[in-house]
């Protein structure tokens, strides 16, 4: 089966200059865990997720901790998030983007999603323009 047959045909995407606040609004309302970043021609240039924002709002040493018991409460996160809320998302974007094309086999999308442990993978056309995404659930519902 080709990617075009299983993908979710949705072009929800953001540009790198939108503020963090707007990104959180979009992720929340569109109920998406992450969103592709595109340029003004619709070309896929990056990717940003809830995880990237949480990482940006937490202190650098957080990931080195084995336990969160050293952190007294969520105040630090809230404070940092308020500081970056009006900053453009550009510096938090991942610019190394994994993607598949509409004509790729479904196996290629499945391989990326499973091996890279990502929730969805963007789909682009032959020119690199965003045309949709393959979600984990797209794989599951098409093979049931």
């Amino acid at each position, binding site marked *: 089966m080709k990617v075009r047959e299983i993908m*979710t*045909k*949705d*072009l*929800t995407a953001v*540009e790198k200059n939108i503020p963090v606040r*707007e990104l959180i*609004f*979009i992720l929340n*309302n*569109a*109920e998406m865990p992450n969103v592709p970043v*595109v340029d*003004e*021609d*619709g070309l896929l240039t990056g990717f940003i997720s809830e995880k990237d924002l949480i990482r940006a709002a937490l202190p650098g040493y957080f990931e080195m901790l084995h336990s969160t018991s050293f952190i007294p409460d969520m105040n630090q996160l809230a404070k940092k998030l308020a500081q970056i809320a009006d900053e453009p998302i550009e510096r938090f974007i991942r610019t190394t983007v994994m993607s598949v094309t509409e004509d790729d086999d479904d196996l290629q999308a499945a391989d990326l999603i499973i091996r890279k442990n990502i929730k969805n993978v963007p789909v682009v056309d032959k020119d690199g*323009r965003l*045309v*949709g995404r393959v979600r984990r659930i797209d794989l599951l519902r098409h093979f049931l």
Partner: protein
Amino acid sequence: MIVTMTLNPAVDKMYWVEALKVCDVTQEEFLTRATRSTTSAGGKGVNTSVFLSRLGMESVAMGFVGGYTGHVVVRDLRDEGVTTNFVWTHGETRVNVTLLQQGREHSPNLINESGQTILPEEMDRLMRRYRRMLNRATWVVLGGSLPPGVDPGIYGELAQMAKDAGAKVILSTGGEALTRALKACPYIVKPDTREHMTLEGKELTSVDAIVEAGKHVIACGAEIVIISHDVTGDIAITRDDVWEIKSSTPTSKFRNLVGADDAFLGGILYKLVQGEPVSEALKFGLAAGLASAESEEKICRSLAVIEEEMRDVTLVKL
């Protein structure tokens, strides 16, 4: 690529009832049980996208959605195979209710909400996305009412942007939004005459008045103007001709008129994209609209039924 823009989409909730009675003031309440109901994504551009998708033609549906009902719209469109590109808003997408009474399906009762208020920043987001989509668009369908908070000049702005990007524009709206958009010279203009039987302030009460008003819009730069004449017939005005498109189908065959006008526009677009002449596109469009009106489903899904319907459609030069 075809882009449809629905600034004020809706969840279309339809109820079929055996008899519709209104609660009397002396009664505490009055229950009418629906014998059937459906829920689907609605709005002019949305319906056109669904029609095209059912005939195997790709399009991208754009506009504003919000809240739980916004998810209903997006989900339904995806299930229909339409590509979605909506801007999420703070508000809630409206719900439009249609009551279809058994034996009187040809004259349904409609209750339409006015829609969510759009904030300036939400409009900015839509414009950014629209600009991006215009890089790939060949046709743009602009249709339907405007939600609160949106300037009536918006369709004119969207039409001009599409024209500047090299796309042809189909416009179907009414009132001030229509009048102001005509300055951008859309390729096809179909006034929504459900609320205002007027075009540029002129009453469209006779064939002569329709032709005169249509010719004025053509003189301003549009290529085709289509104006509803009666339920089973329209008048189309082009630079060279004036046609009456008519069907002999009796209105008693109508089962659901909601969306029929959008299938009409979708049918015209479907044929024009394939390079068919305007005359053929008009006939196919009316057949598509009638096939939709004759099906209980909002939008017809069978090409064979539309082609069958075309046998009853005539195109007469006036």
